[in-house]
């Protein structure tokens, strides 16, 4: 317990007498309410999102088409082939980005962590551009693998550079490294897309479009994302300890190295597979975990499921807004979320007192 008693920082303050996991500031009741209410809102949002579109369909038809599908009705076909995959994609992507963000924030104890800010999304997008340019027509099954690799590449450079610096990985340094690596990868992606003239294909991709989501993508993406989210739930207890600091965690008998590696792999899978479906959407992973933490306290056993639900809700609602604002045009969803996310980032940046 030597390491445990040395723990100093973090306002959530572990109690020093017990050998049990430190008493955490959590609100399980609020957590339950958020989870149940969130799920209910999510289902409602999905229903409205499916019903709304170029062809108005009422909610009863939505219900029928899902639970008693009839392929002779156009409405049912529209719902099953176009709208349902889109909404499901939105839920999965939102949940994935939010959980990835929550894990990154907990693991690095960095309030500014987000897969978009730390170079993962840019890395995945860069790899996708390479695939579009050199291996056109590559099946999605492999494309998603390359997206994982790309996310790992981006994250590897950012964290590598960040930890090379004297003084180690401070939040500010990580964000700066993330911005520079993103700029570098985006420049390379730009070069590739202009040279191979695949800009049109890629433009929607960066902006983040859910409209192209097909069952084919979902069949490949959902197992990865679900597995990673379940793994994140399993790791959530270890993550809570890790978020109190390495010393506390290892003092309580945790193998922090293993936890960190497993968590990193989960993050790469979540970010990579989401980018492969929807493009480089940032800020979901920044906003949602903060919101979840504010609502349910610091225990990741609650933060992670709540983040998943709220993240799904945010993306589904943003997608709905993207279609409502200026029909028949669709706004890129990444831009809509960025408009929400940037003020929040600025607010967090203003609170960040630690210097470079």
């Amino acid at each position, binding site marked *: 317990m030597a390491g445990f008693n040395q723990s100093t920082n973090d306002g959530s303050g572990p109690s020093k007498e017990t050998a049990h996991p430190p008493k955490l500031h959590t609100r399980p009741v609020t957590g339950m309410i958020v989870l149940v209410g969130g799920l209910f809102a999510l289902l409602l949002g999905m229903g409205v999102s499916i019903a709304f579109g170029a062809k108005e369909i009422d909610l009863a038809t939505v219900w029928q088409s899902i639970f008693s599908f009839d392929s002779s009705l156009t409405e049912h076909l529209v719902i099953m082939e176009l709208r349902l995959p889109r909404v499901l994609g939105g839920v999965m992507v939102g949940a994935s980005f939010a959980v990835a963000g929550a894990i990154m924030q907990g693991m690095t104890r960095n309030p500014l962590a987000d897969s978009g800010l730390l170079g993962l999304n840019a890395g995945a997008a860069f790899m996708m551009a390479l695939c579009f340019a050199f291996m056109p027509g590559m099946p999605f099954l492999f494309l998603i693998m390359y997206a994982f690799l790309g996310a790992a590449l981006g994250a590897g450079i950012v964290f590598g*550079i960040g930890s090379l*610096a004297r003084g180690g990985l401070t939040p500010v340094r990580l964000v700066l490294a993330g911005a520079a690596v993103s700029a*570098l990868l985006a420049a390379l992606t730009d070069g590739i897309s202009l040279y191979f003239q695949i800009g049109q294909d890629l433009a929607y991709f960066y902006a983040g479009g859910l409209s192209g989501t097909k069952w084919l993508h979902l069949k490949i993406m959902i197992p990865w994302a679900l597995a990673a989210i379940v793994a994140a739930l399993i790791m959530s207890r270890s993550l809570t300890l890790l978020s109190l600091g390495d010393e506390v965690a290892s003092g309580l008998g945790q193998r922090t190295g293993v936890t960190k590696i497993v968590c990193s792999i989960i993050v790469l899978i979540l970010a990579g597979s989401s980018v492969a479906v929807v493009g480089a959407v940032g800020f979901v992973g920044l906003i949602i975990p903060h919101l979840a933490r504010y609502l349910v306290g610091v225990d990741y056993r609650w933060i992670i499921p709540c983040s998943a639900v709220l993240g799904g809700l945010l993306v589904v609602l943003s997608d709905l807004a993207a279609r409502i604002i200026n029909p028949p045009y669709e706004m890129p969803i990444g831009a809509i979320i*960025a408009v929400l996310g*940037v003020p929040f980032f600025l607010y967090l940046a203003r609170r960040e007192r630690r210097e470079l």
Partner: protein
Amino acid sequence: MKLHGSLGEQERTARGIRVLTILGLLIIVVFIICMNTGYSKLTPFDVLKTLVGLGTPKQELILFDFRLPRIVIAMLVGAGLAVSGCIMQGVSRNALADPGILGINAGAGLVVMLVVAFYPSTSAAPVFMLPVLALIGASLTAMLIYGLAYSRTEGLSPTRLLLTGIGVAAGISAVMIILTLRISPEKYQFVATWLAGSIWGSNWKFVLALLPWIVVLLPYVFTKARVLNVLNLGEQTASGLGAPVERERLKLLAAAVGLAASCVAVSGAIGFVGLIGPHLARRLVGPKHQFLLPGAALTGALLMLVAEVTSRMILQPQEIPVGVVVAVIGAPYFLYLLSRSK
């Protein structure tokens, strides 16, 4: 400011002049190489002949109408951005400041894009207006960032300035993406190239639109070298030495924003020159702004020329935007600086 011994001062001056001369010569060499590279081959001898007026009409067309304006713009933009970055680094005492990283280029870009998107054609009229419009966008962005990062209790923290810049730039690029999808395909191609930082205004009109800004602002900034030296000592020391800190800082920042905006209006979103130029110059001529500012201007011009040559040579006959080349060189350098920072 007699802080140093007179002998050291003299040595430093001699060294500064030497380095500046070498940089000037290097620029001339790359300038000549740059005139020789491109889609149609011109030998150095051809170039020389054409310059003194003995070339064929075709050679004259290639050289005077296609290559020279671009080369001149590249040099002016490099010098302007590097000096702008040099001022920002000096004023904010922040080694990582750069008009691109601080989001000022993005603000200029947004306004340029709005004009391009909603002006009926890309014809002659708006060329001379572009730097002015870009300046408006850049100034508004700079004010926004300054206002958001400034705190009454703690003053202007370099860290918060950078974080705010990154955030604001992200917000602006989101708005730009929203706009991109609303415009026609031809204009989209144009905007995409602009965003990637291609020197698209490749004729003399753009040189003329940019030149007055550089000609006025660079000498003005050079006369302020001593003020920058004092500001660099820190806010309290500077006020102690009798400098009206806040007023001088605002004047210098306004000049920096003006330089960055006019350059970006013509060249597209080119980042990192404002970061690397001053750093290389500081290594070569030391921290005194009397030499640092001209040094940065020359280094910046040289960098842009090299990037320009590279962008034309690397994937012939295709050209890649200069901004891409600059980012590929610049981003690793930024990361290197970051990893060295304390």
